């Protein structure tokens, strides 16, 4: 068993989990929902082992480094953190249906990584040989994953309001009865961003610290840095709108979706479309 086989198992598990969750939406059968969750948990377990194995394999190859050094590895880690957060929400809040809107993000990430990218373990170029890489990537991606979860929850919110209208009277039966109440979705959105924002802040700060340590400039307005700041501004606006202007519901749900779109651009758009210091991941080869 090697890491790349396990990554395929992971991708397949997330695919199956997504399908089962959609079946859950259609059937509203509780045991189908449970199956969706369990398959996602199994995928997470496989992926955890696979990441650890890949780490070990890089040492066996003599180019040992944490598996977070290129676009492929970062996408894998991203999908891992998304499922980790889903497990937390599933266990803590018991809103299983969230899986139908969150697991697909992890599936898309894994499918793209496995099918469209060079999966080989590469040695680290000198610029990346630093422990800062680990701190920086972990904080950034935990933040991105929290924003992905917030986005999934906001989409649920928007679907639910669109179908039910703004009336709070829950219609009996209906698919919507599966969804958590609007108030809970709104609160979960805020909570996810409350986790994501500090992590993104730490991610930007560790990036700045590393840049300063490695080449003497903590901020050089390189496109990646600038986009991470743009994302940060959007979520800062979200927090202020919500806490002080009392924005809630639809408007904050849209802000959360916009914030995640900016996050995705920061993560992928900048690597694939713009050039700069962070082109490290290269593109899909």
């Amino acid at each position, binding site marked *: 068993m090697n890491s790349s086989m396990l990554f395929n198992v992971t991708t397949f598990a997330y695919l199956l989990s997504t399908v089962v969750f959609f079946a859950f939406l259609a059937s509203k059968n509780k045991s189908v929902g449970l199956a969706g969750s369990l398959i996602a948990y199994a995928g997470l377990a496989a992926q955890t082992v696979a990441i650890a194995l890949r780490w070990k394999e890089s040492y066996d190859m003599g180019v040992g480094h944490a598996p977070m050094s290129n676009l492929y590895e970062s996408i894998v880690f991203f999908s891992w953190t998304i499922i980790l957060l889903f497990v937390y929400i599933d266990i803590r809040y018991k809103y299983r249906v969230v899986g139908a809107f969150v697991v697909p993000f992890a599936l898309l990430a894994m499918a793209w990584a496995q099918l469209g990218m060079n999966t080989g373990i590469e040695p680290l170029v000198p610029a990346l040989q630093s422990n800062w890489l680990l701190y920086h990537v972990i904080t950034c991606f935990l933040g991105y994953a929290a924003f992905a979860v917030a986005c999934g929850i906001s989409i649920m919110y928007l679907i639910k309001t669109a179908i039910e209208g703004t009336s709070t009277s829950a219609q009996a039966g209906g698919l919507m009865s599966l969804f958590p109440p609007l108030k809970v979705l709104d609160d979960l959105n805020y909570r996810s961003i409350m986790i994501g*924002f500090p992590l993104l802040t730490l991610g930007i700060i560790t990036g700045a610290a590393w840049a300063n*340590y490695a080449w003497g400039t903590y901020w050089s307005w390189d496109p990646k840095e*600038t986009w991470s700041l743009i994302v940060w501004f959007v979520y800062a606006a979200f927090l202020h709108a919500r806490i002080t202007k009392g924005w809630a519901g639809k408007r904050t749900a849209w802000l959360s979706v916009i914030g995640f779109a900016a996050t995705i651009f920061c993560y992928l758009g900048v690597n694939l479309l713009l050039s700069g210091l962070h082109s490290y991941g290269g593109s899909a080869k």
Partner: protein
Amino acid sequence: MATTDKSFATSVWDLFCSLKLTLSLLISLALTSIIGTILPQGALPPEYVATISSAKLQIYTKLGFFDMYHSWWFIALLYVFSLNLVSCSIKRLPHVFKFISEPTLVLGEGARNSFSLKKELKFSGDTEQWKERLTDFLAKEFSAPVITEQSGDYHLFAQKTAWCRLGVYVVHLSVLVIFIGAIIGSLAGYKGYVTIVEGASVKAFQKQNGEQMPLGFEVLCEKFNVDFYTTGAPKEFRSILTVLENGKPVPGYSKVKVIVNEPMTYKGITFYQSSYGQASEGSEHFISVTPRNGGAVEKLTVREGVPVTLMDGTLFKLLEATQEVRQFAPGFSGPAARIEVTPKGAAPLTFIAFKNFPEVNAQRGDALIFGYEGSNAKQYTGLQVAKDPGVWVVWIGCTLMVIGIFVAFFMSHKRIWVIVTKGHARIYGNASKNQAAFQMQFEDISEKFQEVKI
């Protein structure tokens, strides 16, 4: 007149205190920042200039789009943002301090009804005695209360971590601290670049604007090396540097290893490994020429780009050379040279001659076999030079920001009131954040509360 003046001043003040302005500024900063990630910044590459019309070029240049993060309007946005932050804090901080230092000791009727967290305990007996008992209870289960007597009733108030209401202001302050650090850096710091040939030393470096600036000491490059992975990708660039004062090595700064991600700092000036190259100027390359049909080996000493005529009339020119060919020709390693050979009366041929692979050189079917024997060329190391006295202020700001955000998001100001009246006592609770967690704590406390006995 006076009133309109006042109202004007007030409305400016209100504008600067308003969160509408904050939201507009945050969104404006986010949107305008995009420009600089799409248009090239700084010195424009000629290929780019060729692709846009001159009218556009002029407008963009006027608007500062090609150095937008330093343009007057972007800096102005940042200043307005800072003013917004300061005014907002000046307006709110006194209220927050008052809120913390003078808490609501007595809950009004309205507040009592609006609280969702409340419980009642019925009792018979002396109110005074129950007050004592419940004071002890609160002190044990939560925190010691303040007691206020009002028309025969006793109001017990207890709170925890009231100071965490200041977390948000620590975050806001930290943004200003970071700005101050950046301003100090831009006024008192500098950045530049220097190249040092192996074995040589420098006393000055070139600033970003092209100006030479003295270091105030001397830096000697003892040695420079590059290591490669077996794939040919570079593994490590390594300069061995020594700092000299008055021509003598400074203790502790002799033969310091500087690699990417491990810089050297002396007297506040930091040297970062950033590039390297071949100091081609004046160096000589050694070439061997072996006739295929036997005969004397000819040894040449040539300079890059300077043609030489061989004994048989062949014109020879060394185009470029490297001491490590791996990155250009995977599968090969060691020194190599790209050479141009023009046999008499024939067209020029260009090929690579390797030092470590003479058999490859020999595989060419020409009459002469060219080998590269290396050169006396020296490598130079390229170092980024920077001094930023504001960087510590920036890190203090970042630390404050992280602490502030943590306090603002994850700590909560918890308050409990107990009102003791004849015949019953009521308990009320409220938390500024994380209501769900507090609710559990409150339920736990209020259950015990209902079981209090004398």
